[in-house]
């Protein structure tokens, strides 16, 4: 297989990492919602932590996308 074709295939496989990152982010917000429905008064101050956690998890998905871009472009 030529290097160019292999690079494009690799970029496609790298994007699978973003699916896993989506599961991670959904996990964080799902747990936040479950906790917020049990204890609504404490939910407000923890929303910031939920956003920070989601940004960190999303960051790993973005790293996978950067690898894909490096391979394609």
């Amino acid at each position: 297989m030529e290097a160019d074709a292999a690079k494009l295939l690799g970029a496609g496989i790298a994007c699978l990492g973003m699916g896993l990152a989506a599961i991670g982010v959904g996990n964080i917000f799902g747990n936040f919602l479950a906790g917020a429905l049990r204890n609504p008064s404490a939910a407000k101050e923890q929303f910031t932590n939920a956003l920070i956690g989601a940004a960190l998890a999303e960051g790993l998905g973005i790293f996978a996308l950067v690898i894909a871009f490096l391979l394609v472009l």
Partner: protein
Amino acid sequence: MAAADKVDPVHQFIVNDLIPLGHVADMKLAFQNSSLFMFVAVALIVGFLMIGTKARKLVPGRLQSVVEMLYEFIAGTVRQVLGEEGMKFFPFVFSLFTFILTLNLLGMVPYFFTVTSQIAVTASLSILVIVTVIVVGFVKNGPGFVKLFVPHGVPMVLLPLISLIEVISFFARPVSLSLRLFGNMLAGHIVLKVFAGFIGTLGAMGVFGVIGAIAPFLMTIAITALEFLVAFLQAFVFAVLTCVYLKDALHPHH
């Protein structure tokens, strides 16, 4: 259709030399469009803060309210992570936050250059952060700062391996900090340009094409809204992680 320009989502990231400034030891220096937008961002921030705090009323008017909310937002975060003694790092964290936020938001304007989508810029900012963390760590704790890499209550057998892992994860921090901001800005803008390109491509294909172009149009609006959220969130996450790393420097015992 064949004569139309091919949609090129990467063209927006080209750094142009606006004013060449000669050479320094074989490297070409120039005032570039990325430097221009950094100047514009600083001018906007300084102007906004100065005009907002000129009135100095006890019960603030609208602009002063916004400035005070911005201050209190970051001051609250710094106090929460670092405590009251951490407020001496507040100017650093505040400058980082407002600079990155303004650069991200300037990039949202059509035809403006997104400075934070350049790995050189985000890497410089994160190297600044990690050097500050290391210097503060050594100034505050002396050579005992390396106790950061040796957590409590680890059996002696595992200690070398755990310490090695801790050192690697410490040096992965600036890498992840810069890549997170860079990747988010780069990916967001490429996706935005690709969807916007679909509108043009579909619109050129007759009546049904124009009707069909409504779908990417709505999608572009949704993605623009998402990009505003991401711009704000990424600046905030950069600032919060800076606070967390500084906390590690000030109190290395876990």
